[in-house]
């Protein structure tokens, strides 16, 4: 397991072309020594706080989720202000398609991190994954941060995965931010049910 450096990243994108990162607006600046910078896309999801009772993964209906979201789109170059402790979902402007033998980690670029921005908590990207990465944007700082669509806010560290995984059909190919899909990952619920304390006996 090794991290891809600049030359290897360039090879995979431009020669073997099995790593797709589209578009690369400025490959020279974006591909760094051991990572590739990704930019902020134009679609966002904010939570409508006043209508947000709570997220209970066991009760949340997928359609119900939509009521708590406010989706909006900006033009490339326009900005959204993220206030202290505000949380928003964004996505990378770049569309990725990892080959079966590469996985990746998405990290906040340090310059934005020092301003208080955190861009992802779930940072691992599976081999063969395709889509625009959802970014969990959070301002951990004390002052609002203006986030411009197209600014290079995160970086992707690519790691070889051995042995290569077989490609399988996917549930979706996201091209913008995707809200939580907790309800559809309910395999753990059956497991959890075994441990749930029974309620009071019925009269």
């Amino acid at each position, binding site marked *: 397991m090794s991290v891809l450096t600049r030359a290897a990243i360039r090879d995979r994108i431009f020669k073997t072309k099995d790593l797709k990162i*589209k*578009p690369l607006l400025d490959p020279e600046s974006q591909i760094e020594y051991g990572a590739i910078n990704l930019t902020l896309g134009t679609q966002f999801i904010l939570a409508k706080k006043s209508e947000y009772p709570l997220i209970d993964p066991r009760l949340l209906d997928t359609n119900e989720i939509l009521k708590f979201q406010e989706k909006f789109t900006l*033009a490339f170059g326009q900005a959204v202000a993220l206030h202290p402790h505000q949380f928003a979902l964004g996505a990378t402007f770049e569309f990725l398609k990892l080959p079966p033998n590469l996985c990746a980690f998405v990290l906040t670029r340090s310059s934005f991190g020092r301003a208080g921005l955190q861009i992802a908590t779930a940072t691992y990207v599976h081999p063969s994954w395709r889509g625009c990465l959802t970014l969990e944007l959070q301002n951990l700082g004390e002052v609002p941060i203006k986030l411009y669509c197209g600014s290079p806010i995160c970086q992707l560290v690519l790691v070889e995965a051995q042995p290569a995984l077989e490609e399988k059909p996917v549930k979706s*190919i996201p091209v913008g931010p995707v809200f939580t899909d907790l309800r559809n990952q309910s395999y753990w619920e059956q497991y959890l049910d075994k441990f749930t304390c029974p309620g009071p006996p019925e009269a």
Partner: protein
Amino acid sequence: MPEPAISAEQYSNLVRERVAALRRLLLDLTRKAPQSAPHRFFSAVRILIDAVERVFSSRCKAIESQPGSKEERATETAFAARWTMELLNNAQAQFFPFLEKLDSPHVPLWMLPAMQRIASQFEPNVELYLFPTSEHNFGFSGFRDLLRAFVQKFELAIPDDLKVEIEERAAKLPQWFVFLSFPYVVHDSALHLTPLLHELGHFADFRLGIYKELLPIDISQSDAARKVVEEICQMRVPMGAPESKIEGAQQPGVEPRVEEILQRDVIEQQVFALCGQIIRNWVHELISDLFAVRMGGPAYFYSFATFAANLRLDARAGASHPSPSMRIDLMLKELSDLHYSSEYSPLQVRSSLESWRRWLETQPLEPEEPPTRVAYWAIKENESKLVEAVRKHTSAFSYGTRAYTEKVKYVVNDLEAGIPPIDRAGDGEAAFDACDLVDILNGAWTTYMFSPEKLESLIECPPPERKLRGVSVLNELVQKAIEASEILRQCHKRSKGGV
């Protein structure tokens, strides 16, 4: 002189109240407007309202200072106020509908830069906006030199200092504001937004004056028009008899013929005016169709056919639009001119166009209703002129089979692999060229029509829903491709020293 029901002062107050209300409304809409809204259009409307108010104030001052009785001055003030109210009402009706829907989250901002670039090919100083409507149809509205047009219209009433001020502010605004509307229901479907190319065709038509090469079409010597006049002359006019009489009127000859009531030349004038209007409407529509099909290739044709099928493919011609069959007939001929029916064209495209040709053979092209029949024949007689006029203006960017066979395969390959066709390998080792909107749309329609299975096979979904999910994913990939390819194109242009 009797006392007017509303005094001059009340009239003046009404004007001021209306101006204040419009300003408040405009401010409210401006506050609500997103960053991508047409802020310069808002400014233009604001300047216009200010100008109307100042024209009214200066007119009131002039009336006050002129000789004459108090009653005469009051009458003139009331007249100026009514005139001003009419202007303000017109401004509200004309401009505000465009401002109301701009904060809709359903504006496809991802498509706007590409559409703006195409529009800029015909007029560099244009600002283009897209907005949804609840209607079935797409629409085009253009405002040319909004403020200067106002000055020209009311030249005499505008004080000189205001003219100078308006000219200064007009210079900072685009020469054209163009609004293209689309049905809400297709806001997230790149495929079904393809008919916007037709609306861009309207803009090109008006901007380049293509219609002037055809209009007006003289129908005074047209056999079809004479026949219509004759038919109308012989029609019988119901005279509004009581019901019992109407039953009796089934006997022929009870009611008079039109020519017994109206003079023949009056009937001719009416018929020619009505037919002339229909011809004008149809010429604009057909120019835009030809423009869109030459610019967009088979993608526009497929999108139009699908759009028409969603309404009624065998719909009759109306006063505003020719029948779908007439439009399809003309577009098929144009696609043949672009060699889409020859051996240079991919087999699947050729076969699909052939099946449309066979369908056309089952359709009556000539409309039944007399005025539309006149328009049909007038256009048929001028068809070659119409086609030539459009070809002259589209020769630089016609989407022929060569472009299609060279570029569309890359787009289709990407889409079938579940990747947005944003770019393709360029000349250098590390160079990717941005795909063009028209390539993407043609690739999208080709995938949708002929090979959706490959993309569908990538999606984990039960079979009944897979087809629908496949179309949804296709649309999302195309949206992403249209947005990102245009940004990439602009980045390349800037890095090469362009603007």
